[in-house]
């Protein structure tokens, strides 16, 4: 079995990210499952950057725990990451830059390579030292060199043959140097088993593709890390299918454009991150009140305020669920994996259209920016649902907001004869006329909007993933991008003999109460791991269940590692054993 975690670290702007990307692509094209994690400085030049890629011949669920191979271009990268290298791991470094301590020399297998001088003297271009490093890795770990060659030709082809040749030369220089090293470790990759039918996508790319599959035609957005690449991807792809991306003057305009376009019958969306989402709450209420379908994506980053723009967190859940004034029925979903980004966004469009309300979709930096190998998406798995339109009879004395048992009223679009109405932000009657002083009417209309909201609960109950022991003693309820890490941790813990299982809902508001109740009944403890300080999902669940949840909160701007979850499982298991069995009754 192959399962190898690489990390490359160095100064931002010196090619760390592109080294990681090329390594990732070469590993993927060599037939491995890949799973990346990147963290990079907020500065464009300078600052510390690193890129992690895990490669395996089986399904990967997380970025992994300890490193098997660390590549450091400078001393800062060495100091920052050497503790993450497993005992007996491989450390590749630039001898022109620094020398590791003797203690580290004893615990790791070292390959000191004069990367800078090879690049300056043998290639003649200092900037190529990262390509020299890739050549070294290719030689040391038997990663097929032709995959790198193919990638370099694709990446630099546009810059001309001379640039391609320089890079191929750098790769060869590194490769030859690596072959000259005496092999002292056991990592040998060669070709992996993966079939070529998979794609290599980031979460943001997968999401954008899913939106196109849903019929997206207009995108409105304002640049913000880490959501910007959704806009850039769509700016290139949407015009090819007759659509367009508008870079608006702010996020308020972005959601305004989405509502206008959706009102006029076109599928539209926007994506942002925390600070932009704060602005968008203004018009979320308008979407709710006017019952206009809208899809709003929040690729979360560390907050509050400007926070840590390039780091990950799951702390916008309250804002997504509660942001806004008045009684606000909206659906909140969370994407769980690169593959789920594709189908998740399709479901978000379906829910928005079917229930004529806004759907807030939470992703995060960790998920949006990581790449993974995924089976080629199949859009037919999520049949497209469109809004209920009025019948010719209904257009006679048309009532846009007609009270119906299911709360859903027929929605006309401009261009339809007889379907005239005003999409109202004021409280309104069934026709859509303002009814700002009709107290009874406000109750009926609020009830109508919440009838739709509660109907989504049935969908939420279907959109739940469960892992590990079916009726566990220790349950884990997790959400969003932690799915893979939790699933891997559960596997490890189950293998160790613990009675552990995890439930992972994809719709967080309304919650899948039936499934949650079913899952938590009979557990001795329920752990809720979240990347936020206060336990936002745990707090939402406390309103529904009288369980003394065990919170596992991480607030460093980094994702969980599987080991952190396993440690908590073991701690809770020992604690429960000490205190004897407790019972938890679900509040009904």
């Amino acid at each position, binding site marked *: 079995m192959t399962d190898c975690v690489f990390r490359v670290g160095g100064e931002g702007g010196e090619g760390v990210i592109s080294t990681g990307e090329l390594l990732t692509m070469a590993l993927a094209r060599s037939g491995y499952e890949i799973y990346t994690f990147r963290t990079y400085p907020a500065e464009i030049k300078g600052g510390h950057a690193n890129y992690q890629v895990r490669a395996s011949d089986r399904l990967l669920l997380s970025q992994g725990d300890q490193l098997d191979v660390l590549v450091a271009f400078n001393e800062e990268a060495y100091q920052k990451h050497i503790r993450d290298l497993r005992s007996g791991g491989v450390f590749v470094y630039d001898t022109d830059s620094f020398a590791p301590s003797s203690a580290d020399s004893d615990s790791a297998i070292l390959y000191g390579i004069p990367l800078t001088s090879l690049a300056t003297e043998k290639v003649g271009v200092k900037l190529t030292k990262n390509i020299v490093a890739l050549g070294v890795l290719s030689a040391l770990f038997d990663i097929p060199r032709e995959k790198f060659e193919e990638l370099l030709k694709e990446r630099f082809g546009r810059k001309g043959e001379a640039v391609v040749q320089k890079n191929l030369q750098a790769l060869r220089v590194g490769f030859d140097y690596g072959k000259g090293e005496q092999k002292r470790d056991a990592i040998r990759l060669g070709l992996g088993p993966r079939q070529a039918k998979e*794609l290599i996508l980031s979460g943001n790319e997968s999401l954008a593709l899913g939106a196109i599959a849903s019929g997206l035609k207009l995108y409105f957005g304002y640049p913000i890390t880490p959501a910007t690449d959704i806009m850039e991807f769509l700016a290139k792809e949407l015009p090819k299918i007759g659509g367009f991306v508008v870079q608006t003057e*702010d996020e308020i305009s972005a959601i305004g454009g989405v509502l206008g*376009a959706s*009102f006029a019958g076109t599928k*539209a969306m926007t994506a942002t991150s925390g600070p932009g989402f704060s602005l968008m709450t203004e018009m979320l209420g308008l979407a709710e009140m006017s019952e206009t379908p809208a899809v709003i994506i929040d690729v979360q980053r560390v907050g509050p305020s400007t926070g840590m723009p390039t780091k990950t967190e799951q702390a916008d859940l309250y804002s997504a669920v509660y942001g806004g004034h008045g009684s606000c029925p909206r659906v909140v979903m969370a994407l769980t994996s690169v593959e789920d980004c594709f189908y998740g966004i399709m479901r978000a469009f379906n829910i928005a259209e079917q229930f004529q309300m806004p759907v807030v979709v939470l992703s995060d930096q960790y998920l949006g920016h990581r790449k993974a190998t995924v089976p080629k*998406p199949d859009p037919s798995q999520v049949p497209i649902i469109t809004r209920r339109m009025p019948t010719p009879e209904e257009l006679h004395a048309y009532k846009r907001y007609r009270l119906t048992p299911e709360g859903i009223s027929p929605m006309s679009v401009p261009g339809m004869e007889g379907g*005239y109405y005003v999409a109202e*932000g004021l409280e309104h009657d069934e026709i859509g006329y303002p009814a700002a002083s009709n107290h009874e009417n406000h109750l009926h209309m609020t009830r109508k909007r919440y009838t739709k909201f509660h109907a989504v609960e049935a969908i939420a109950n279907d959109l739940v993933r469960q892992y590990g022991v079916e009726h566990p003693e220790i349950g884990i309820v997790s959400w969003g991008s932690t799915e893979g890490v939790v699933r891997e941790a559960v596997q490890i813990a189950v293998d160790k003999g613990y009675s552990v299982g995890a439930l992972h809902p994809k719709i967080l508001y309304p919650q899948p109460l039936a499934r949650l109740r079913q899952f938590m009944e009979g557990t001795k403890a329920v752990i809720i791991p979240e990347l936020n300080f206060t336990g936002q999902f745990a707090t939402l669940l406390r309103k529904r269940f009288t369980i003394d949840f065990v919170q596992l909160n991480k607030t460093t701007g980094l994702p969980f590692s599987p080991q952190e979850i396993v440690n908590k499982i073991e701690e809770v298991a020992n604690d429960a054993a000490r205190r004897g069995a407790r019972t938890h009754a679900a509040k009904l």
Partner: protein
Amino acid sequence: MPPDVAQELTPQNYKTDEHPIWCPGCGDFGVLASLYQSLAKLQIHSKDLVVVAGIGCSGRTPGFVKSYGFHVVHGRVLPVALGVKLANPKLTVVGVGGDGDGFAIGGGHIPHAARRNFDIAYLVMDNATYGLTKGQYSPTAPKGFQAGSTPYGNIEKPLNPLAMLIAYGATFVARGYSGKPKELADLITRAIEHKGFAFIDIISPCITFYNTYKVIPPKLAEVPHEHDVTDRAKAFELTLLDDKVYLGVFYQVQEPTFEDGVAQVIKTAQASSRPRLEEIFAEFS
């Protein structure tokens, strides 16, 4: 509501069952009457018309015009109107709002709407006051204006909407007056006919909180006949004259619209390739 039949549309055809909630004598009645006149003149079918409005007395307009309407939140007429127009460029889109809605809370959208030059008519009913919250000063209120929030007099100078719109790159900039509905109807017609972003600052007095019906008429004058509406500098100059309140078109030029630009981008993108999702997938394998 009268049935939709293929006969000549009259101003009556655009009336709805909803009765305006405005104070008797409000300038907005004049604007609404002019809008009906103009729509009838242009024979715009209700099904192809969308009126997007902000918050304030003027924001209630969509309910009084038989058409599709979107009564949005305060200050966001232009972003929503852009979405409507891009979704279906065949629609006639009219934006309406007040001076507070457009120039205060929504002021950040005006430069971008103007320079994008998307094809809508934007009518601002300018009464220099916040009528719906009982008469506070607005961005166009004069210095010294005394009201609830300025009991000792307004210390800010008013902004000049026409100068602002010309500076931002709007391709049609005009001023009208609710007390001259015939002339106003003509201006609205020209604004709707104009291909691009057309702006009319409409003086529409608030009879309850800032009654200017006696002050305005003596100052009114037509934009001079010799004025060249394509001369941007001259148009700007005209906006700065404060001896008179000029009515008419200050500036009008033809430039490509945002929709033209979108169509061009789509053409360029499709000339290189027209991929189905399958082919986009292939880029990532």
